[in-house]
């Protein structure tokens, strides 16, 4: 199983970064670009929230990336068909590919980590809460990514899914800034996205957004429930062997 996971990591991240290093620039710039906009517009006052947003989006982008990469490998190279007919199970393939997306995000996470070290002040409890949020975001996103990838039949359809997910989960929700910046009637729309709960919890952990313990608990419950539900959907609806 370790070699099967290693194969996914090699193919989907290491070899690509090794043989095609320009992707590294894109990987680093992608979460940082929106961070810079927020920092400039807020004159630096939202730097901490923006760094957290960068982390959340890096983790969430893993799922978007997974969806695109799996579709690409499946539809354009028929690689998934070859793997299906091999001893690798769908769970191992998915896990390996998910880890490969994390490896792919490492350069960005490293840059964000340095920024967080200098510009954020997290307690041990806050750090644990923030890590929990990031793990849940990662799990949520890969469940979405895997499910959608099994249904996409070509790369154009895959791009359409990617853009839709990106808009619904990162552009509309207040990931890089506090939700209080959104006027109240529109705030409810933001609550449709799990990234909103993740951002609220992360901002609360760092002391940027005060949350009552009831609200914080509710946010955790929703985030965990969404993650579990999406994993159930992925395990029951996603197609490994075609029917």
């Amino acid at each position, binding site marked *: 199983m370790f070699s*099967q996971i290693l194969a996914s990591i090699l193919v989907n991240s290491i070899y690509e970064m090794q043989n095609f290093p320009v992707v590294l620039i894109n990987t680093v710039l992608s979460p940082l670009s929106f961070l810079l906009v927020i920092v400039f517009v807020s004159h630096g006052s939202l730097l901490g929230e923006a760094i957290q947003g960068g982390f959340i989006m890096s983790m969430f982008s893993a799922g978007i990336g997974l969806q695109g990469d799996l579709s690409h490998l499946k539809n354009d190279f028929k690689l998934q068909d070859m793997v299906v007919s091999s001893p690798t199970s769908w769970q191992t393939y998915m896990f390996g590919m998910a880890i490969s997306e994390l490896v792919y995000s490492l350069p960005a996470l490293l840059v964000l980590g340095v920024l967080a070290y200098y510009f954020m002040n997290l307690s041990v409890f806050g750090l644990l809460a923030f890590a929990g949020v990031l793990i849940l975001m990662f799990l949520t996103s890969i469940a979405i990514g895997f499910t959608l990838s099994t249904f996409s039949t070509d790369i154009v359809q895959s791009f359409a899914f990617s853009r839709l997910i990106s808009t619904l989960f990162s552009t509309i929700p207040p990931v890089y800034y506090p939700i209080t910046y959104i006027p109240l009637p529109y705030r409810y729309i933001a609550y449709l996205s799990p990234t909103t709960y993740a951002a609220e919890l992360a901002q609360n952990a760092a002391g940027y957004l005060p949350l009552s313990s009831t609200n914080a608990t509710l946010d955790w419950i929703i985030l965990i429930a969404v993650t579990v539900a999406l994993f159930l959907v992925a395990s029951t609806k996603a197609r490994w062997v075609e029917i």
Partner: protein
Amino acid sequence: MGESKKLAEGASRDPPLGGGCSAKDHLVSHVQLAPEQLYGRMEERVQTVVCDHLTKIYGKSESKALDALSFSLSSRGIFVLIGRNGSGKTTLVRILATELEPTSGKATINGLDVVREARKLREKIAIVPQEARPIPWMTPLQTVRAYLLWRGLGYSEAKHRALQALEKLGLTKSCNELNRKLSGGMRRKVMVATVLSSEADVIFLDEPTTGLDPISRREFWATLREIGRERFTFLTTHYLEEAEELGDKIGILDRGRLIRMGTMKELRDSVSYNYSLKILSGPKEGIPAPETGETITGQDGNVMILTTENEAYRISRELVKQGLKFAVNPISLDDIFFYLARRKAGE
């Protein structure tokens, strides 16, 4: 962690891109394998594929991609499945390779059910799907090695087997080039190297030569012959001369049904006539009818006469007198396929 360490070590051992490599150069002493370990012993290579009323209907379609297909095949070497586009070749291969579930019916390979025992079967089979191509930003060595890792081999053994397979297919010098820099024929070889390097007993190759130019295709046949000598290979093609050239046994699939299966000799014997005359030009009205044999007019209007040797001689003289251009040849798979497919369709 252990595997990550191996990865780091392995990456550092890889020569820079563009350099050649060989199995000998990179031989890891503890994974040296004898040919029979790598490819299996000859007597083990007779494989059995059985389909019992195998039917596939896609979605809500009314047409059947496979229509109660039944056959039992015990063979070694290369089995070639031929058929027109849409005849069900790829559907059958995908079901046998456990990628696609049948709507009804059953299929087994060496007694293992393709649906119920798929997990066990996947250790014994390998496939290069139709239109599969190597990832452009990877090298042949990386491509083959990664596939072997997915098959569960350790990093060192995967690397060694990959190098051996690439060497066997003449890709040693290119094994560290990026795949995107390789020619179409070489890319196909890389894909074939993946399954060749595996421990699979049965290899499925779905139209591996489609899109190759005629010269590259013929060169590629040597590679396929090589594989057929070592493993049971289930190959699909719509190039009939390829089937004739490579197939130890040939199956003819038409509209989801197997209309004939056997060696080339058996297929020839299944048609009562051993010569074909193809009328190449001139008015079709004056073509003499054979006393023994059949005249077939294709959808394109071309006329072909299947007949005996003596009758072919007689008709040839008539055609010469009329000044018609024609070709006369011993019956080919092309003729057999054309004849059987039309007879099955009741035309």
